[in-house]
């Protein structure tokens, strides 16, 4: 199935388009700031940016309902922002401070929010796939109709545990949407260099799981496909696979010189397919917003991100006692 075209559909409201624009821009600006803070040495270790992939999480969050769960890999900042976690707490976790979501003990790759049903932030490639199916298992067991979005990359799609999970998820009709964020590169290895079956969603057919390929640069296409997937899962029909074709503009992590692709390839994506520019064009050509309106949003988001950055610098480092906390949950008497 070819990628679905992002049609500027008349039934999309200005309000919705503006919402997508705002949410994607928040991720873009947040990540640019994170890259900057990394450059200044305020963020350490590994830092995987989401720039270019914003439409994936924003589109799918638009298809989610309250109580739905999500779990992902270490490239997790976008997912957290899209599900409504406070940018301050995310940035402060990146800088390893007390005000971070994990009190500074998790870092860029390991954040969680029980309140927003965000279950991490996992650093072992594909480990989140059975974990996501397990979260879906818990909802089915409890008898509610919640759905779990389980995100993983094209690299993870070659791990064996993905297929162990597909098998059980379909066997047990688990309400899980497997979202393959295919950004074309597993670190530095392109999809075609790692498999001769490059249509990743079709592998689900071996287990009887339905799925489709989606244009991941179009937030509207992602949302629409997300709604189909969610409807399938919520109605008790078991899992669904979305292979979302997306693109990351930055390196795998901050320390990736990105010599495995040309500068032109990246620039072409940015110029022709950028998810934020697409919505921006729709807003302007459809006369849903003026340049000034969008400038005002830009300014507002810049302020939010700057506030988060300030908080992440001012929040103190965790107290040394924190070294010894949260290793065990206390046994109730």
């Amino acid at each position: 199935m070819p990628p679905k075209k992002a049609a500027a559909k008349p039934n999309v409201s200005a309000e919705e388009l503006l919402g997508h624009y705002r949410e994607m821009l928040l991720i873009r600006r947040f990540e640019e700031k994170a890259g900057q803070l990394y450059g200044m040495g305020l963020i350490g270790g590994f830092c995987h940016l989401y720039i270019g992939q914003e439409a994936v999480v924003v589109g799918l969050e638009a298809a989610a309902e309250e109580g739905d769960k999500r779990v992902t890999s270490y490239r997790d900042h976008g997912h957290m922002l899209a599900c409504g976690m406070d940018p301050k707490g995310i940035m402060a976790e990146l800088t390893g401070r007390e005000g971070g979501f994990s009190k500074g003990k998790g870092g860029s790759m390991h954040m969680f929010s029980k309140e927003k049903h965000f279950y991490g932030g996992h650093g072992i490639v594909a480990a989140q796939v059975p974990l996501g199916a397990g979260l879906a298992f818990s909802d089915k067991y409890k008898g509610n109709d919640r759905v779990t979005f389980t995100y993983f990359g094209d690299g993870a799609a070659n791990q064996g545990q993905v297929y162990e999970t597909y098998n059980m998820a379909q066997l047990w009709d688990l309400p899980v949407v497997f979202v393959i964020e295919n950004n074309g590169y597993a670190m530095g290895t392109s999809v075609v260099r790692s498999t001769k079956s490059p249509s990743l969603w079709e592998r689900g057919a071996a287990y009887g799981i339905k799925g489709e390929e989606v244009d991941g640069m179009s937030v509207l296409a992602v949302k629409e496909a997300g709604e189909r997937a969610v409807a399938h899962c919520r109605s008790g029909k078991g899992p669904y696979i979305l292979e979302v074709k997306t693109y990351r503009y930055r390196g795998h992590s901050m320390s990736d010189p990105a010599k495995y692709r040309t500068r032109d390839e990246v620039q072409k994506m940015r110029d022709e397919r950028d998810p934020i520019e697409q919505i921006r064009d729709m807003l302007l050509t459809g006369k849903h917003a003026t340049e000034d309106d969008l400038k005002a949003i830009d300014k507002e988001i810049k302020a939010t991100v700057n506030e988060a950055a300030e908080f992440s610098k001012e929040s103190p480092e965790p107290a040394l006692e924190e070294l010894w906390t949260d290793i065990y949950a206390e046994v109730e008497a």
Partner: protein
Amino acid sequence: MATEILMPALSPTMEEGTLAKWLVKEGDTVSSGDIMAEIETDKATMEFEAVDEGIVGKILIAEGTEGVKVNEVIAILVEEGEDVPTAGAAPAAAPAEAAPATAPAEPIAAAPAAPVGDVTPDWDADVETKPTTVREALRDAMAEEMRSDEDVFLMGEEVAEYQGAYKISQGLLDEFGAKRVIDTPITEHGFAGIATGAAFGGLKPIVEFMTFNFAMQAIDHIINSAAKTLYMSGGQMGAPMVFRGANGAAARVGAQHSQCYAAWYMQVPGLKVVMPYSAADAKGLLKTAIRDPNPVIFLENEIMYGKSFDVPVMDDFTIPFGKAKIERSGDDVTIVSFGIGMTYALAAAEKLAEEGINAEVINLRSLRPMDTATILNSVRKTNRCVTVEEGWPQGSVGGYISGVIMQEAFDYLDAPVITLTGKDVPMPYAANLEKHALLTVDEVIEACKKVTYR
């Protein structure tokens, strides 16, 4: 407002780099994402992108300059019509100073607190007991906990319709149904991950591994997903679950089916690790494990499943973690063991008594938290210690105990601690070789005589 462009850190270890090439010149307009320069790090040449928009007002570091420190101002961006500020403006704030590196003093293990040498009996003397096999005790423990808590379920290979590969889950499918007693495909990595996710989601899974040998396929989820999440999430969520199954050598099943994992799992903060010896241990500890809000490794032994012991007839019999049991009192030497190792320890103590050597035999039961207080109290009395286990010698449970004794009771020792273990070989198949690869009662007797100089 002018924006200072700082020399970026482009890897976790970079402190300085070479400004190889400028791709912009003074007066150029840049916007977010434009490549400004190429920078050589210790690992690679990286392109450096603009984050802010503006006009390149001034380039302060010429291309080709080596040893440019991270966070040094390399250029200044200005807005249209703005003057370039004087070069060398104050650099941006450096990262916060690291706090003084004196971590709080901490005992040898960060393990959950163990009761301090509590030697009260597991049940009162007037409680009626009933002979029960370890197999039945494990089943009864699961059934009782499943009756009292709807969130508890059992998952594993052949646990439901087959009634358990070792018949541990006999009858559970009939009582609790297929929703709560779940046969899995043969897919340890996958179902351990699914169970861990279910625990994140608020359920209390019991995962049965047919044997712990197969859990090596799943060890990433046990350690990276189950044991570490509470810490990584700053206490927000963890994995209240039990991983249980047969561990260690059975009989004549060869190298890949005959390994003891006690020392492996005992090393991991975030896990609790127990290994019952008797049926009462099995029942009391498994009930505690199912209720515990942390991931628990519950190591059973196939040879012990059919052995019968007295189990108290009580509505709710539990044994706390971190409480060792003195199975036999004595003054001459302390023998510390756990699980099937107890069979050698107790048989040796019996024979030693005939020769006038009174051994005190400690059944550890839980390895993490470990009741080191009871060990130390005993060693301070007997001044000698022999540890007994079937696992391998290097990095053994006994090696850890020996270290604790040396650090905490060195002055009480009248002989070096002897750590008896299985032999340092993969398990052979031949009957005679297998017997030698494991422990013998004679080896325990000999070691006790050696430390008592008899």
